[in-house]
């Protein structure tokens, strides 16, 4: 539960550079970048993220020449092996438009690995993974990490349409739901979760995706009394815990209600992005 955690820095994170080894437009306006950085690749855990300056550089020394877009952007780790890791993003606004111009051979300036990652050890036998939109990539890493621990996992994937289905070849057990019915179940990924929970209750549900999806998943799990961790998003100016910008509201609880609502907001760049769904104030 929500014991206020001490603010000692996470271990292993660093300010570093990574070379773009490969770039692939995996779906319209969706890019996967393979990045070379052994420090991150060897220590990162499923559910963690990197914080990336949105301007690629020609070499490691290059410190950039633009203050616009100014701030770093957070991207989950799709997967990591030996000295490389991957991220996958959708071109959304100015940050990702700029990042999409990174070319193979160029460098990205990044901080990582950041955040807490999913509590994989809470799943001893089985887990259900739920991912929507660009919340799918971290589930690839999660599925592999679980399988290496001998934990069976089932992936439930939500997308707007067949064209937006990401990473489907990366999952061994996969069900798909699309908003427009052009692929798999016509409807929400939450529907798939309800059916799955009807069959069997897993040790854990791990979820990442748009807020309404996460809220639905949290409610479904709460109703079945299944443990659920959700990976949350909020604007993250620093990513390293110093600005108090990236907070999400926590459920009122005795721990946090010292003083005048003190502790009601939690910084998810350090005490997240993965959070116990029961701790979140979903209202």
């Amino acid at each position, binding site marked *: 539960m929500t014991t206020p955690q001490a*603010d*000692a*820095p*996470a*271990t292993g*994170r*660093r*300010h570093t550079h990574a070379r773009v080894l490969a770039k692939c437009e995996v779906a319209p306006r969706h890019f996967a970048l393979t990045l070379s950085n052994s420090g991150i690749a060897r220590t990162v855990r499923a559910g963690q993220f990197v914080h990336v*300056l949105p301007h690629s550089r020609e070499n490691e020394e290059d410190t950039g020449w633009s*203050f*616009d*877009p*100014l*701030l*770093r952007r957070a991207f989950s780790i799709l997967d990591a092996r030996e000295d490389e890791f991957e991220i996958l993003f959708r071109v959304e606004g100015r*940050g990702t438009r700029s990042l999409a111009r990174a070319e193979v051979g160029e460098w990205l*300036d990044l*901080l990582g690995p950041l955040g807490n990652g999913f509590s994989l050890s809470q799943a001893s036998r089985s887990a259900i993974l739920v991912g929507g939109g660009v919340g799918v990539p971290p589930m690839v890493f999660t599925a592999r990490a679980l399988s290496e621990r001998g934990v069976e996992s089932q992936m439930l994937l939500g997308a707007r349409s067949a064209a937006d289905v990401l990473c489907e070849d990366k999952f061994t057990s996969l069900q798909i739901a699309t908003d427009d019915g052009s692929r798999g179940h016509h409807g929400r990924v939450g529907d798939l979760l309800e059916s799955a929970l009807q069959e069997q209750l897993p040790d854990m549900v791990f979820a990442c995706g748009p807020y309404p999806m996460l809220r639905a998943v949290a409610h479904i799990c709460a109703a079945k009394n299944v443990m659920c961790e959700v990976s949350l998003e*909020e*604007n993250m*100016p*620093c*990513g*390293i*815990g*110093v*600005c*108090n*910008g*990236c*907070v*999400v*509201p926590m459920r009122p609880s005795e721990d946090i209600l*010292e*003083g*005048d*609502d*003190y*502790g*009601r*907001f939690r910084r998810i760049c*350090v005490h997240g992005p993965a959070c116990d769904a029961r701790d979140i104030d979903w209202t």
Partner: protein
Amino acid sequence: MNPHTPDLRVRLGALELQNPVLTASGTFGYGEEVADLVDLSKLGAIVCKTVTRLPRAGNAPPRTCETPAGMMNAIGLQNVGLAAFKRDKLPFLRDSGTKLIVNIAGDSSEDFAALCADLNDEEGIDALELNISCPNVAHGLDFATDPIQTEAVVKACRAATPRPLFVKLSPNVTDIAVIARAAQEGGADALSVCNTFVGFAIDTRTRRPRLSNGTGGLSGPAIRPLALRAVWRCAQNVQIPIIGIGGIATANDALEFLIAGASAVQVGTATFVRPNAALEVIEGIGEYLSQHEIASVRELTGSLQA
């Protein structure tokens, strides 16, 4: 003195710093959050997040958004409160290897003064910075927009503590010189110029404000020319040292503030972009001094040519 190792030491009232580059309040937490990424002992000083008497939850999210070459924030002074600050945060800060400036905010002159007094017994605090200029809480700007209130709050604090008192001003005024003189009159040892500029942003899709608080404080490179103007104007109107703040991201930016009349600077938003921004600024100032064969950074302060 060896011309190749320029003297970076500066003095702010009674306080001597090893170099003129500080971290800005609210952008460096309580130091401990980034001790793995930044060698704290190399900083001129740490200015920690504003401390209030009682803990504050702060504003609801979203609290920040990006703007062209800048960002807005409406954190709302989320902080652990005085008691937890003393108990949980001070011990680490005391041992950080550099000086500590504690930034405080109160609701009234009495509250400000009581906070100063409450900290008098704590060791390892080298100065206090009075945040009379937070735009993101109710009445946060009442003090810094009124010379009479500014003078009163500084006087009250002056009576409550022997520590160096830095007063953080707001740029959201018609003439900052008026407020600067009032703070000097009240007994400030130095002025921190300046806090954020009040701004607004709307999500045109939802037609709602981007920040839950409505308005926010603009910071980052976008405001640099405006903050520099504020520093220059203050420098020409007071005799006490000035700490320049606002959009400083590179050594060159910091040099502009020193030349305009600041004795030291604070690095804020740039730390979000590069955690070691402040250390990079220190290094760059040293290189500039060497290149220009200037023995001490103190010679730069106010060295603007007509």
